[in-house]
């Protein structure tokens, strides 16, 4: 059997999806922090013309890629229980999306 015919574990795919959920949650939480907490906002201005958006998005991307690298390394050759991983991923995505919606941010 050629190596390409071997069963592909679901770990790498699960890592990618869960990391995307982590990135989404990070974006939501940092959006909230940058909007509601002046001290946090001051630390998120990494490029003055773009304001806090620069820190919010860059830090979110770093957390997303970092989570992907760690999970990808851990699950590279593994099959994981996919359904709970996906459930958590979509929950993180949903919270992240909600936290970028201004009327929801205004609740805090």
């Amino acid at each position, binding site marked *: 059997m050629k190596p390409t015919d071997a*069963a*592909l574990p*679901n770990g*790498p*795919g*699960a890592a*990618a*999806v869960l*990391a*995307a959920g982590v*990135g*989404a949650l990070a*974006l939501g939480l940092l*959006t909230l922090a940058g*909007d509601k907490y002046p001290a946090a906002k001051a630390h998120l201005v990494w*490029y003055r*013309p*773009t*304001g806090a*958006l*620069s820190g*919010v*998005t860059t830090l*979110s*991307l770093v957390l*997303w890629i970092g989570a992907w690298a760690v999970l990808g390394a851990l699950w590279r050759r593994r099959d994981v229980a*996919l*359904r709970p991983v*996906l459930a958590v*991923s*979509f929950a993180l*995505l949903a919270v*992240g*999306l909600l936290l*970028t*919606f*201004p*009327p929801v*941010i205004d609740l805090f």
Partner: protein
Amino acid sequence: MEITTRSLWTALHGMGFGALFLLAFSAVFLELYRVTHRATVPTPPFATDGFLRGYLLAMTALAWLAVLSGAYIVYPWYRAVAPPGTADLAAYPQLLLKAHANTIGWHSLGMEWKEHVAWFTPVSITMVTVVFFQYGRRLREHPALRSAVLAFAAVSFLSAAVAGAAGAMINKYAPIQGGGVIHLSKGA
């Protein structure tokens, strides 16, 4: 006929990158669904995995170009601060929107949502592209993963659609103007 450099960048950001991503989406979604579905269906000669991979890469590039050009080229012009006493706010779109009760919502809801939700697009489509490069048609062996990938592809489209629609409306009420003038042609 002329256009300013800022208007040109805004058009490139919205139409060149964002709208092209939206236009390209339906084809990639249906093709992803088709090639990763269990049912055997005839494959058109142009629709190889290589074609789909190239298409996904192009969409991923468009998504990143759209958010990066928006955040680091167009957005600073949008949020420019006017000198004290400035009466004409045409060159300061954010201030222009906030100066009127019937347009302030385009900033407080439209831009505030757009500037953040847009980033779900490159994150989602990058993940979709990488997973397809890893699994290809063998994604059909993992139905739950396949469904998740398709769902994230849909998220990339919906977030781009929200950002694009808000951007179009914001630029209607407070267009990005200024910069050098590019003369395209002389009047008849």
